[in-house]
């Protein structure tokens, strides 16, 4: 298998059958995707499109009805390969009686990481996901967003080469969402491969190199974000400090050359950016007051 590929599927098919073996649901139909090493790949689709089924098949949680899949050049059930993979499930599935430290220590032990190193990694990951204030609290007392954060931390405890994230920003506030996206971008810088499964299109658009869209278990389209989203027949320019007269002159200039003006508008800020700006400014001022005291 090509060593530049982190994930490869060949006609991957999954049919869920009822108890008596009768054909029930075609969850995934002959999926063929190739994800390169170092790439952030987004798997998109509406509910029930087969995203999570694909992830479960890749991780060996369920078995394909037809076809096969390879992770980092090995079959999905290869135990050694699993030590190079990090996985964040859609639901936060952890022992709720453990606290954050114990959780990361438990998963670290499963990777046979030495005790001292486990401690160092757990400390840095807890800091990274912003759970220092609740690290001794049992997970049963965590909010959904906090559980996602500890989920991300456990997915990274083994410093994996391939990270599979199912709805990583689900349940997170905008700041948590941004921090998660920053973490994913940082992973890309470190040369890691990320398979991201989400139905929050803006998240995927912001960070993914390539995407695939699934619907009813079938691959509809795949490619780079630029290729899929850019309109080759449209040109967008953002200009500053233009008077109304200059705008009118530009309009007539374009019309004279057979150009079509689709829209002229003043761009507005996104609600996410506005929210982040306000909250981050407030936090900065609170921090400075605290430090001065």
């Amino acid at each position, binding site marked *: 298998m090509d060593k530049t590929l982190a994930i490869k599927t060949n006609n991957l098919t999954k049919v869920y059958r009822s108890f008596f073996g009768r054909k029930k649901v075609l969850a995934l139909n002959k999926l063929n995707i190739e994800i390169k090493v170092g790439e952030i790949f987004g798997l998109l689709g509406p509910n029930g499109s087969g995203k999570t089924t694909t992830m479960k098949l890749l991780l060996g949680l369920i078995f394909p009805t037809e076809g096969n899949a390879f992770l980092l050049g090995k079959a999905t059930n290869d*135990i050694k390969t*699993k030590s190079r993979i990090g*996985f964040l499930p859609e*639901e936060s599935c952890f022992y709720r009686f453990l606290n954050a430290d114990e959780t990361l220590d*438990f998963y670290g032990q*499963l*990777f046979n990481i030495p005790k001292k190193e486990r401690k160092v990694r757990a400390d840095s990951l807890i800091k990274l996901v912003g759970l220092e204030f609740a690290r001794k609290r049992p997970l049963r007392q965590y909010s959904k967003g906090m559980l996602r954060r500890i989920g991300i931390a456990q997915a990274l405890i083994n410093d994996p080469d391939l990270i599979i994230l199912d709805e990583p920003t689900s349940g997170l506030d905008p700041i948590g969402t941004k921090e998660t996206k920053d973490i994913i971008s940082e992973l890309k810088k470190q040369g890691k491969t990320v398979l991201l499964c989400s139905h929050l299109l803006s998240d995927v658009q912001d960070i993914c190199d390539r995407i695939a869209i699934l619907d009813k278990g079938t691959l509809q389209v795949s490619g780079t974000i630029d290729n899929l989203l850019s309109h080759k027949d449209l040109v967008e320019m953002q200009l500053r400090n233009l008077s109304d007269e200059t705008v009118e002159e530009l309009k007539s200039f374009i019309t004279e050359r057979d150009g079509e003006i689709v829209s002229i508008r003043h761009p507005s800020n996104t609600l996410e950016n506005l929210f982040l700006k306000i909250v981050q400014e407030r936090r900065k001022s609170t921090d400075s007051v605290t430090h001065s005291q």
Partner: protein
Amino acid sequence: MHQTLVIAKQTFKESVRNKILYIFIAFGLVTIFCSAFMPAVSGEKIKIVESVCLRSITFFGMLAAILLASSSIPSDIEDKVLWTITTKPVSQYSFILGKVTGFVYIIGLLVLILGSASYALIKVVDSLQKDTEHQGLTARQMFEPAHLKITGKSAKKSGNIHWIEGEKGCASSWSFTGLESKNTSDKIVIESNMFVESRNNRKKTIPVNVKVVNHFTGESHRETVTVANKKPSFLRWSNETLGGGKNLTIVMTPQHSGDFLGIRPDSLRLFLGNKSFEYNFLKGLIVISAQFILMVVIATLGSTFFSLPVNILFCLFIFFCGNITDFMRDISTVITIAGAHEHDHEHGISAVVKKPSTFVTLLNSILTAPLTTLSYILPNFKKFNIGNYFIESINIPIKRIFASFVYMFLYIIFCLPISFIVFRKREFA
């Protein structure tokens, strides 16, 4: 192996933080301490305390084993914790073995707590016993006959009971081997428990001639003892009877013609010397723990393919039926005999069934085979019952412990691979 121990540690931690464990320990401790206030109906109070303590450990330990072991894996599957474990470099074998090992740890803890409390209570009750009949905490060394031989022609054989008649040249001969005691003051005690019938009297007691032969010294001792039907009779000899040898042969025959002695291989037991109670109690706890481990393995097997409530019911069914396997075999025997219209045994079970009916015939065809098969497939938890050793103050033979563990390991060898295969084939959707 590393992953197995990590899972085991986690399972132990999970169980320790589970309130169910503390409830069972609390109920167990209450029951154990309440036994000290139970009135002594007959015999020594210490026997009641010992019996209640051992039964409490067995009952609450078994309940804890069933509920903790049968719920852990189904809960992990239901809460999807398994998603985050099986996607790590953990094989299915390590996971299952880790779970079983973790439960062995927790059972060890439970037996340690309840066992220590029981031992402390038994010692306290023992120290408070002041009556003259009280023998103290001992564990008598019991010897079972190595060989039973019926010489001459026995009157008849019914099941495993040989009936011999007096003055017909017929005798029962038991051989005991390996008899030794460090303490020369220890007495040789022979306990017989036999069936008796007589044409001569209605009291069901007959005189029996007993001859003790020492092949080492060539000496023999004769005595006559009165034996009652199904009641123990005792004979006592000095340790010197052995005369430096280790083997004795005991020959018994009814004194008079018309008197019958019903003998089974276990009708005669010989006691010589005592072992420490503490050591015996520890051995008892080990045998009791073996059945908990067996149940943990069965619960783990069930949890690989059953849901939580179904698995608990499955384990309770196994536990219940595993305690009545002998009864199941007897029932199937009764049905078979009744259905077959057999009435030729005077001393057999068929004597009580007089009228075979269509219903019995129907039962015979439907129930006999499944009941017999089930009774052989299901684990027989009676094999782990050591209560009688403590009631009779008998040292538990090492071979009994060995037999219990062999029995447990046979089931483990059967159940664990099935658990591995089922779990490996299972999808976690």
